[in-house]
Structures are given as structure tokens and as C-alpha cells.
């Protein structure tokens, strides 16, 4: 049977990776996935740089969810050094993390619409995303690597919370009134996504799927809920799930998560107390080991950090969400049409820069 190589550079792929698709006619019978094209040995580099340098290094693991990596690493360092983060800083971390989730989900929704063939909605999603980027730029001064997190707090305060609140309310309103109705009821979207790219609940568990990919297969896992960090335990939000197990379920779950993120930011802005937003000095990290996890836009981000008491970590291990989710793409494409492969792989919201590190 013919094998069709897609990638590592291909119009249907956002980043370099390779999927070899075995077909019988137009139907996919098997697939194999090849990654590593963005391998930068960041874990190896981390063992040769001090903690301050590592914060900057790990911000570059990913160009979309850079904030989650510095947040997870900062939390790991804080756990090792037994540092308490000021409450205002915790709220700021939540606000930036949710704004990053908004921009990531809206970016993904746009790409998905483009792959579905819905150009108008693609433009609408990215117009909304642009408003989120303005919020992130307004807070941090940056549009990609925000450089917000540091062990002990954040590097910048939110100086104009009213502007953040107004922007988030506008995004929430547009998502609820325009985006979600179209995504959930439009016959084109449904025809392209419903029943396509199935990942069963059992497979999601066995493959260790995380984030919206797992939640769209009926698994209600979310680190913000199951192991709350920062101030998530004080905030009210739902964890949308679906038993659909298909691309459509992943679309719906992410769309609903946009609303939940807006809800979280609104509460965080209103509840954020006055006070300091960072500690006085960079902490001395004692000997020890720890794990830190947070819920990134694509799912659980995991860091293991070991210290020998020096200013350079002995080991930093990173498990990104796409690393866990991507192997499930093989299951999703088997039995599907060749033309659906691009959309199915995109439904995971893959990030190969993260995966390869």
C-alpha cells in the first residue's frame, strides 16, 4: 500500500514534523509520526546555566505558550527554596496565564477554521486574538515572550486593570454571541468535524492524553481544578468536557474554555489585592528535588527540577502537553480520509517547538 509522506515541511502543518500516512485508496490504514526537527537540547543546556539564565532559556521552549514554562519553572524553584509568592503576584500570574490560554485557543480556532475551509471565521478568530495580544502587550510590553515570571513573583505589575477588564469582557461577548454559535451550529463546521478523528476515553487514558484533547474524550482532568495552584482555588470556573471524542468535541471544548478563561480573568481582576508583586532578592536554592505542574493551553505542563545547592540545577526535566498528546494522532487518523489528516492533527493543537525542546 502506498505511503504518503507529509512533512517535515508541508502546507498543512504549522511547524516541522513528519507524518507518514499509509493509505488504501483515500482511506488511511496506518500512520507513523516523526518529531525532533526542532530539537535544541534545552534540558541539557539548563544543566549548564544558572537559574536566572534558565528562566530566560525556558521562556523559549515555546513561542505560543512561553508564559507557562517560566511559570512552572518559577514554581519549582519556589517549592525548592520554600518561597511564598505575594497574593497580588499570584493573581497577576493567573491573569497572564489565562490571557495566554485565550490567545492560544483563538489562534488554534483560526487555524482550525482555515483547515475546515471557513476563511471568514478564521479572520474573525484572529481579530479577537489580536485584542488578547494587545492585552498581553499592555501588561508585559511584549507580544510573544512576556518575561512576566520570576521566582518569588512577577516582573511587572498590572497598571491598568480596567483596560484588561474591558478588553476581556468584549472578547467574552464576541465569543459567546458570534464565535460559539457559528462553531457549534454551522453545517460546514459540523460536516468537517463531527465523527472525525475519534480518540476514545480508554485510549486517552492509556496514551496519557492531557488538556482539551483529553477533556474532549470525556476525561475531566484539569490541574487548575485537581491540584489548584496560585489563586485558582479561590476562583469559580467550569471545566468543559465532552463525550464526543471527535474533532468537533475538541472544537467545542476549546470554545467553551475561552469563556471560562474570560470568567477567571474578570474575577481575578476584581479580587486582586494591593501589595507587593515580587520578593526582594533572588532566592538561594537548597539541595533537593521537586515537581511542578500547571495547566497550559494544550494541557498539563510538567517540570522536574533537582538541585545540589548550587546556582545551577542538576536536572530539569520538561514534559510538554503535545509530547503526551501527539502519539494519539496515529489512532485518530486510522480509518479516516486522507483529506482529513491535516485537520485531525491540528485538532490536538500541536506544538512541535514545545515537543522537541
Amino acid at each position: 500500500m502506498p505511503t504518503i509522506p507529509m512533512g517535515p515541511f508541508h502546507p498543512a502543518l504549522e511547524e516541522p514534523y513528519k507524518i507518514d500516512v499509509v493509505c488504501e485508496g483515500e482511506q488511511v490504514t496506518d500512520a507513523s509520526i516523526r518529531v525532533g526537527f526542532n530539537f535544541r537540547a534545552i534540558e541539557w543546556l539548563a544543566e549548564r546555566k544558572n537559574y536566572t539564565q534558565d528562566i530566560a532559556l525556558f521562556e523559549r521552549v515555546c513561542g505560543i505558550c512561553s508564559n507557562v514554562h517560566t511559570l512552572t519553572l518559577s514554581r519549582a524553584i519556589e517549592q525548592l527554596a520554600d518561597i511564598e509568592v505575594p497574593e497580588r503576584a499570584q493573581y497577576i500570574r493567573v491573569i497572564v496565564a489565562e490571557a495566554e490560554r485565550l490567545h492560544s485557543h483563538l489562534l488554534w480556532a483560526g487555524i482550525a477554521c482555515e483547515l475546515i475551509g471557513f476563511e471568514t471565521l478564521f479572520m474573525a478568530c484572529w481579530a479577537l486574538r489580536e485584542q488578547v495580544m494587545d492585552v498581553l502587550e499592555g501588561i508585559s510590553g511584549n507580544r510573544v515572550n512576556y518575561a512576566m515570571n520570576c521566582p518569588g513573583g512577577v516582573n511587572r505589575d498590572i497598571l491598568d486593570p480596567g483596560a484588561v477588564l474591558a478588553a476581556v469582557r468584549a472578547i467574552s461577548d464576541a465569543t459567546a454571541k458570534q464565535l460559539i454559535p457559528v462553531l457549534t451550529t454551522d453545517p460546514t463546521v459540523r460536516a468537517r468535524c463531527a465523527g472525525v478523528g475519534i480518540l476514545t476515553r480508554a485510549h486517552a487514558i492509556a496514551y496519557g492524553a492531557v488538556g482539551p484533547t483529553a477533556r474532549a474524550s470525556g476525561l475531566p482532568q484539569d490541574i487548575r481544578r485537581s491540584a489548584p495552584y496560585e489563586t485558582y482555588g479561590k476562583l469559580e470556573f467550569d471545566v468543559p468536557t465532552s463525550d464526543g471524542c471527535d474533532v468537533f468535541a475538541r472544537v467545542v471544548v476549546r470554545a467553551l474554555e475561552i469563556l471560562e478563561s474570560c470568567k477567571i480573568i474578570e474575577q481575578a481582576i476584581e479580587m486582586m489585592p494591593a501589595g507587593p508583586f515580587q520578593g526582594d532578592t533572588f532566592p538561594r536554592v537548597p539541595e533537593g528535588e521537586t515537581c511542578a505542574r500547571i495547566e497550559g493551553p494544550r494541557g498539563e505542563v510538567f517540570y522536574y527540577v533537582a538541585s545540589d545547592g548550587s546556582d545551577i540545577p542538576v536536572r530539569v526535566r520538561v514534559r510538554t502537553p503535545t509530547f503526551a498528546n501527539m502519539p494519539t494522532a496515529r489512532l485518530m487518523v486510522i480509518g479516516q480520509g486522507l483529506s482529513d489528516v491535516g485537520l485531525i492533527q491540528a485538532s490536538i493543537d500541536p506544538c512541535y517547538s514545545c515537543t522537541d525542546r
Partner: protein
Amino acid sequence: MDAEAIIQTLDSQVRCEHRTDGYWATMPDLDVRAMANLMLANDVRLVTLTAMPATSGGYRLMYHWDADGDLINIATTVATSVATIADILPAADWVEREIRDYYALEFEGRAETPTLMLRDGDEPGLFSRTCELGRDTDPAQTAHDAAATEAEEV
């Protein structure tokens, strides 16, 4: 079955430390396949594996699991190989391949262990090999040397 019960089922004598960052246990004689079967039966998710050189030689290998939000970290020490769990839990497939890339640790029982991050034909053990050069080695220089050597070989 909760996190503590799972650890006690694996080894009733083991000291289990419950910290804010999860449950920690070290099991020198860990039966990794029995552990994987137990976790699968209890819907416990494999988060990842962490390998690092052990001070006493060999490698410290940690299996990180999520049991309804509780993080379980089970460590063991291995010399050069350990049984695979990828046939029980496909979640381990890429991780085992990656660890072989970095430390040349072999996972016994796999039909094949293709490279994940390295290229086809690359020698496994990138991290353990370059660790021997010391922490002060300039990574960029090392990469340039490797590229230069490769160019010479071509």
C-alpha cells in the same frame, strides 16, 4: 484506590513521603511492569519518566503518575537497562525512546527503539556522553565540533 494505597500495593514496606508536590517513594527492586499494570487497572495516568545519572553509578529513573490530581513519583535505580512498559501503557513509548536518546538506557522487551529526538543512525546517549565533558563545556562549541566532525566524515 488512592495514591498512598497504590504505593503500598507496590511495596508495603516502602517509606512514602507525602509533600505538597506529591507522593514520593524509592523502590530499588521496583517491578516496573507490575506497576504499569496496577496503574492501568486504576485509571492512573502516566505523566512521564525522568532519568538522570545516579551518584552511585547507573541511572535514577523516576516514574511520575497522576491519580485524580495526586502526583505520584516512584524512583528506582537501574544500571544500563530496564523492562519496557510501553506495551502496557503506550504513553511510555515516546518517553522511553527519548531517554534512550539522552542516556543510552535500554528498555528491554521492545521490538525496536527508534530514535525520537536524534536522527536515524545517531548514537544514543547524547546527554551522558556530553556530560563527561563537564558543565563548563561551551554547548555551542560542542555543537560546532560535532558539526565539523560530521562534515569531515562526509
